């Protein structure tokens, strides 16, 4: 590193003037996440039997399962993406998607003060599941505060969370 000018950074600084930037033009150019990267938990209410194992094992307490009411919900902002729920699920109802959801904003806060990032699914009532006309699975963004909403109150599927 014998540099007569004693400016060891100078050659690189000069090279940087003519070379391409190291960064991407981010919003226009996005690097896809690698295979196997942990992003967001995805849930399939059709196969879930509400065994509550995912809720018990979740280290962040992000998952809430109400077995009686057949409601499965997750707080995406609390979830730490450790993959434990996916590994313990015997029915393979949970999967880890590679991509993260976009940032949750204040605008996502529901009318009842639900946290942004809350997402819940209502499972079909086993007694009435045979009726095909009933909306068996609907992802809703509205969270009942205390008393769980009846199944019939499930709103039209919306881009929840």
């Amino acid at each position, binding site marked *: 590193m014998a540099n007569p000018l004693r400016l060891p950074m100078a050659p690189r600084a000069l090279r940087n003037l003519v070379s391409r930037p190291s960064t991407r033009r981010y919003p226009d150019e996005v690097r896809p996440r690698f295979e196997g990267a942990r992003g967001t938990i995805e849930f399939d209410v059709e196969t879930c039997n509400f065994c509550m194992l995912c809720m*018990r094992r979740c280290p962040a307490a992000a998952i809430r399962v109400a077995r009686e009411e057949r409601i499965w919900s997750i707080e995406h902002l609390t979830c730490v993406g450790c*993959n434990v729920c996916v590994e313990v699920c015997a029915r393979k109802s949970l999967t880890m998607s590679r991509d993260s959801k976009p940032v949750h904003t204040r605008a996502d806060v529901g009318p009842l003060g639900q946290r942004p990032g809350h997402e819940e699914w209502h499972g079909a009532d086993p007694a009435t599941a045979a009726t095909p006309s009933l909306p068996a699975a609907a992802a809703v963004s509205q969270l009942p505060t205390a008393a769980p909403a009846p199944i019939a109150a499930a709103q039209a599927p919306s881009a929840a969370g």
Partner: protein
Amino acid sequence: MKRTVVPFGPQHPVLPEPLVLDLVLEDEKVVDAVPTIGYIHRGLEMMVERVEYSEMGFVAERICGICSFMHGMGYCVSLESIMNVEVPERARWLRVIWAEISRIQSHLLWLGLGADAFGFENLFMDCWRMREEILDIFEKTTGGRIIHSVNRIGGVKRDVSDSELAAILVKLEDLGRAFDRTAGVFANDPSIHHRLAGVGVLSATDARAVDAVGPMARASGVVMDTRLSGTSGYDQLDFEPVTETAGDCLARVVVRMREVRQSVDLVRQAIARMPKGEGLPLETRPRGNPAGETFTRLEQPRGEVLYYVKANGTKNLERFRARTPTFANIPAMIKLVKGCDLADVPNIILTIDPCISCTER
């Protein structure tokens, strides 16, 4: 002479995390420094009461965002020693590889922050550009850039194929060569020498007296490296702890720069020694609940970390305690700050590589 108290932190341009020092000044000289910690206490150790032992490793990993892999590994090694679980050989070597890569990542991050603290923005960007490539390796192999969640009691969750390991090694060796040029800047730039050489000198005797750990102690010439105790496969690797004798801020920078190269070499040795092939066992499932207590020591990028785990035969541990390297280095930092100029305080604080979120958990 009249004394002035200058509060340093919790918000300060050089501090990545909230550390508070009340600096007592006489003119420009610091005569006393009173540290206060506790600004980012999160009560992670208390969470053993709620989180089952099998998942507590993911919480332990979140003690720190830089040495996260080692915290998760330390927790798992502790539980493995309580439950007498033998980790399969390939999993053990994978842990060594990830641990050394995370050391490179941590040191590059710190070198960048150090350059930023003494006003060398260009160098800061250069270090962080290299660190980004390491984070890509982590995302590819573990699924997470910062929080890897790949350790489990009894082994690791993911395998890395032999061809991918070879590609990682090539990438690391390229990175090592690129890093040599950056290291040359740290070693030869006159402005860096002006800020760091001879500043904050900790003698070997003092380093022992205040129980400094990690690069802080090694920069003062104390041969101290927990990896020498040979845990988790390090006994089969050929390495000498990096030591310097000057004990000043520049020596601490040089120790970390040399450790980056040493870690690349350790990854190379580990890949050469690990059993090759597809489908080798990666974990031994532990049976039952743990009962007993243990101490575990690991060499983190910042120095020796100590875990104490006490289990009582239930699903929840009774106690989980981590003594982090920054906590051990704070007395050394206070000793160095006393008697220095106010303008040198940021550099002295930064060269201990403080990780306050580790310290306060």
